[in-house]
């Protein structure tokens, strides 16, 4: 039986880790993810888990230790944010290409510089091409649920990839919210008592991993990785269906909020979706046809499904809490627009960069974006590349 609890996002994820009882957790503290290994180390000290906790000297070492432990066949986890994730960079690619299902709580924070500890998505957006699956969550409940599902998705025989559970620093990581927690046994039964590794450095049939991969083979191994990412889309939905049976909570590749007859839509990730839903409700009350799509799965990218979901709207604003400095819109924007090309043509598709470095995202800002969309529909005149919430 699920129980209702009041926890911060970090506590909820640390509790999920405790319930899973992984073989190894290797982590280095960095705001705002620090509490996850902090709470977890208490569970270790109290004997509530049998996990080997490795307090390393840097995030590069944290990910390296995770890779080693996962290569040995273990179920492995860590947590980090921003510059910590950046320091893991090299190893992120090695984890993914070695096909090691590691679960990482990525507590989103602005990547320096200028140095800033508050929330935006510049850290995980930068890691979007590292080969990791990326799940994004709006609140503590979703951070907790996604973390548990991440284990099962990553370890699936057709996937074998590492997974990031991304949620907003401070807003989700530190705010205390009500959520439903599963029983320990339910979580253990859901993810399975142990990871079943197809290959491992130790055991009856030890293998070698991470060999020098020269031109005759490297391309084929990358192609395998791409296939695993394609498979992940199906597996993510299968795992979500199983999770729904257990909890009643429904997860897809993205959430559609009041999209039925929407003419103007916003596409957004994480906690700001909550703010935007409030705006949708108030604009709907005024009779305006607005809707919202909250992307949950950014890697693999649900291109066809998103295009289908946006095929009936007149105008879409894709909101990015990160600037990719391409001078051609944020990272989510470029992918959404590209997904629509040839599938949902003739729409107004615009980019809004918002909330960088923890700048508050207000209902007024979101309302302005919807108003801009309606005026674009009416007049046919609009800017494609926009910033909202910055002093002009």
């Amino acid at each position, binding site marked *: 039986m699920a129980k209702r609890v009041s926890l911060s996002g970090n506590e909820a994820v640390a509790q999920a880790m405790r319930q899973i009882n992984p073989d190894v957790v290797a982590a280095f503290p960095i705001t705002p993810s620090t509490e996850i290994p902090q709470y977890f180390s208490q569970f270790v000290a109290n004997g509530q888990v049998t996990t080997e906790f490795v307090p390393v000297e840097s995030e590069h070492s944290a990910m390296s230790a995770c890779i080693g432990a996962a290569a040995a066949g273990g179920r492995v986890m860590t947590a980090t944010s921003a510059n910590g994730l950046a320091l893991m960079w090299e190893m992120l690619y090695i984890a993914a290409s*070695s096909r090691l299902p590691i679960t990482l709580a990525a507590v989103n924070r602005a990547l320096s510089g200028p140095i800033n500890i508050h929330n935006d998505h510049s850290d995980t957006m930068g890691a979007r091409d590292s080969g990791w699956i990326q799940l994004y969550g709006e609140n503590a409940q979703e951070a907790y649920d996604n973390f548990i599902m991440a284990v099962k998705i990553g370890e699936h025989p057709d996937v074998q990839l590492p997974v990031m559970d991304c949620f907003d620093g401070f807003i989700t990581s530190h705010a205390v919210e009500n959520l439903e927690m599963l029983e320990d046994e339910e979580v253990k039964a859901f993810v399975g008592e142990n990871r079943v590794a*197809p290959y491992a450095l130790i055991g009856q049939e030890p293998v070698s991993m991470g060999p020098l991969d020269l031109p005759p083979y490297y391309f*084929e*191994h990358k192609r*395998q*990785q791409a296939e695993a990412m394609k498979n992940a889309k199906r597996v993510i939905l299968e795992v979500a269906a199983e999770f729904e049976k257990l909890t009643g909570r429904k997860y897809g590749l993205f959430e559609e909020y009041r999209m039925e007859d929407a003419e103007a839509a916003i596409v957004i990730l994480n906690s700001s979706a909550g703010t935007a839903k409030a705006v949708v409700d108030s604009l709907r009350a005024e009779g305006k046809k607005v809707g919202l799509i909250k992307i949950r799965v950014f890697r693999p990218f649900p291109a066809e499904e998103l295009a289908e979901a946006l095929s009936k709207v007149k105008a879409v604003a894709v909101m990015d809490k990160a600037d990719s400095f391409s001078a051609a819109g944020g990272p989510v924007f470029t992918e959404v627009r590209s997904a629509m090309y040839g599938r949902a043509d003739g729409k107004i598709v615009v980019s809004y960069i918002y909330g960088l470095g923890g700048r508050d995202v207000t209902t007024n800002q979101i309302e302005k974006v919807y108003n801009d969309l309606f005026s674009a529909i009416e007049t046919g005149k609009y800017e494609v590349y926009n910033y909202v919430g910055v002093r002009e």
Partner: protein
Amino acid sequence: MIKERKVNITPDMTWRELTPGGVIQDAGNAEDFKTGDWRSMRPVWNTEKCKHCLLCWVVCPDNSIKVEDGKMTGIDYDHCKGCGVCTAQCKFGALDYVPEE
């Protein structure tokens, strides 16, 4: 001697056939990788002069001196890289060192 392997990784295998992430399931498969074509000089063995002291076998960094029952039987040109360590140390003039044609 090539042992029985779980998988023989060859450059004509497709991405579907190769092991995930390049995992190597068998120990000692470096034997399959013919490094001999890197050679610009080659050692040539003169059977008559050879005393079978096997010091060439000791010094060869590529395990390319073939030995059976305590006697040298030849050179494994599939893997010999032609470094010349064996030829330089042979005290009996049993190993010549000549350019590859």
